[in-house]
């Protein structure tokens, strides 16, 4: 057992943290969220130059990482900084494309030149990975995909559909015939869209794609949890600073024992969250992967809600304001429960997996 980062990973963490601290402030983030694009292309290219995207891919895929700990490291820093760039899209779509042998596209994703996004959710499908209504017939896609991340910025859409040979992954370029987007912001400050396809010409990449999809959604779930962990760390730090500086009843709030104890509980839960993410990262790709992902996602759902609600409460009114940095992190960590299955979804899955 060894819980220290390797030298390479430590360097990546340090440089990412420095870079993102330098580039992201509450004002900058607010301005990006308010703008149409929803993220900063320059920051995205710089992240790619730093190797943050390459860290998500194995050496055989043109990267230099790709393990659970690499994914966790990168996303923890993005969550800690409240970054908005399309790293999740790069991880999922890039990972799928790499395994399907599209190294040319992956190289451009790693370079920050190409944005590909996975469209897999459907209205009324809740957290189901399997397409229910989107169909692929004679190389044409028809259907409605929900919550497609950073869709407006995407060059290519990787779409799941029911084809003649089961669950199929197909590729569609932006601007394709019969493709339309209804874009909107999401509550965590990101951008997404409903994607509608009407006999849209598509390039089939893989049939019988469900096992591959499940594997990559597991990686994305790990990334989402690490992002939440980072956001929790920032919320914790903001709250400690607030309690040390805010004076009421003639002393800093942090001198009230009842608040000290609540902070101590949060500190304990934060370490639990960190360990759950480490468990999930360490088991990624093993036969224990699914059970550990579900264990961690359930725990993250509980602890992130607690952290968000307590951080707001302990801040008082200022914690409710959009202008103050906490607002973004609180929304980010609560809304993570609505991605890749919530607390209850993963509790049920953990129980089912533990029974076998």
């Amino acid at each position, binding site marked *: 057992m060894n819980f220290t980062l390797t030298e390479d990973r430590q360097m990546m963490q340090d440089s990412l943290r420095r870079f993102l601290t330098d580039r992201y402030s509450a004002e900058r983030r607010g301005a990006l969220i308010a703008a149409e694009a929803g993220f900063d292309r320059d920051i995205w290219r710089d992240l790619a130059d730093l190797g943050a995207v390459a860290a998500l891919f194995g050496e055989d895929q043109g990267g230099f990482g790709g393990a659970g700990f690499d994914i966790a490291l990168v996303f923890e820093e993005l969550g800690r900084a409240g970054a908005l760039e399309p790293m999740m899209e790069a991880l999922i779509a890039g990972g799928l494309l790499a395994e399907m042998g599209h190294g040319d596209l992956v190289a451009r994703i790693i370079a920050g030149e190409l944005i590909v996004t996975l469209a897999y*959710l459907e*209205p*009324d*499908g*809740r*957290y*189901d990975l399997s397409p229910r209504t989107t169909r692929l017939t004679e190389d044409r896609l028809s259907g409605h995909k*929900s*919550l497609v991340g950073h869709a407006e910025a995407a060059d290519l859409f990787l779409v799941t559909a029911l084809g003649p040979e089961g669950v199929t992954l197909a590729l569609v370029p932006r601007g394709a015939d019969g493709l339309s987007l*209804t874009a*909107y*912001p*999401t*509550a*965590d400050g990101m951008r*997404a869209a*409903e994607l509608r396809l009407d006999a849209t010409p598509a390039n089939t990449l893989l049939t019988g794609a469900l096992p591959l999809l499940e594997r990559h959604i597991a990686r994305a779930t790990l990334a989402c949890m690490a992002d939440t962990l980072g956001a929790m760390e920032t919320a914790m730090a903001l709250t400690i600073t607030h309690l040390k500086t805010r*004076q*009421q*009843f*003639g002393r800093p709030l942090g001198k009230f024992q*009842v*608040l000290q104890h609540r902070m101590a509980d949060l500190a304990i839960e934060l370490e639990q969250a960190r360990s759950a993410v480490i468990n999930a990262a360490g088991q990624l790709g093993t036969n224990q992967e699914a059970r550990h992902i579900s264990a961690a996602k359930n725990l993250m759902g509980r602890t992130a*809600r607690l952290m968000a*609600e307590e951080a*707001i*409460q302990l801040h*008082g*009114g200022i*914690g*409710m*304001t*959009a*202008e103050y940095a906490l*607002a973004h992190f*609180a*929304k980010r960590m*609560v*809304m993570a*429960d*609505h*991605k890749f299955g*919530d*607390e*209850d979804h993963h*509790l*049920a899955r953990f129980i089912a997996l533990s029974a076998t």
Partner: protein
Amino acid sequence: MDLTYTAEETAFREEVRAFLAEHLPRDLSEKVRLGRPLSKQDHEAWHSILNGRGWLAGNWPKAFGGAEWTATERHIFEEETTRAHAPRIVPFGLTMLGPVLQHFGTKAQQEHFLPRILNGEHWWCQGYSEPGAGSDLASLKTRAVRDGDDYVVTGQKTWTTLGQYANWIFCLVRTDPTAKAQEGISFLLIDMASPGVTVRPIVLLDGGAEVNEVFFHDVRVPVANLVGEENKGWTYAKFLLTHERTNIAGIGFSNAGLETLKRIAHAERDGAGRLIDNPLFAARLARVEIDLMALSTTNLRILSAAARGQAPGADSSMLKVKGTVIRQEINDLTRRALGPMALPFVSEGLEGANDGIAPDYARPVTAQYFNNRKLSIFGGSNEVQRSIIAKQVLGL
């Protein structure tokens, strides 16, 4: 002990129900049902309808134009209006200031202000909190200096709910900076059209701007607008807060929220079935409903005791804590119920922009979850309420 309603109470319920069926405008109840924001005109229209029936001020004595309802009658009214998706009554004039003026105001103040609260001419807001005075309200710094027949007021209030609609504000101001914190405070009524008053909205994390900062720069306020005695404002403020708290269990809000939650849980698909059939979700929903059933009775017990002449004191702190925890839990379950569809965040400004993104019922849910984090912060945070319970109820 008898949990059944008397014949009179049942008749009153029927009367309220019939009135709502006839007079509650459909467009208003639809907005409330769907969680859409209400405009100032919406609120005013509903107040006017209730005032026409003499039901706007259920808690006021008849002598002041109120309905003088018992605690049970108020409970029935709240249940029925909630069930019918009527707008809530805006509390600042009716629930907060009204009782203060009735107890501590001069006859002239009562005759001038109370009818204007009822007829909607005055929309009041509350000037209590300041940037440096939140939980520790008594540390407030807004100054009022006597100058002839006026006070000159300078300072800043914050978290002023619906201050953007208000034309009057009741304020706690410091009139004696040398006295102990609670003893140098006075209760002033300020016309917001006075020169030197500025209102600035605060955008909250849900994107809405229902609260404001209110700035006072050398604002002249006639001494006639002082309520009660100078430097006794803290007594009136505490009186007002206990009255505010008699409604703060929010039973009606919770009942309405629970109804919406059940509707969504029946509509949302989960696996092969409906979300309501998911045992984990059903258990969460049942627990909060069980808590609410008990709180509803706690609420009535405390309010009935208050009606028998025991002032609604520290007991109402219990209603505030448990009531807000339950409302927040219902908000939390409602966002969970939506699954991924809790994520789209479409501005209310873009009417119709939600089309084809998520079910109609999904639209307000996430914003409400975040917005209602305020419930455990405002009106005396739940931490302050717990301290009151520990000291005043338990004697610790």
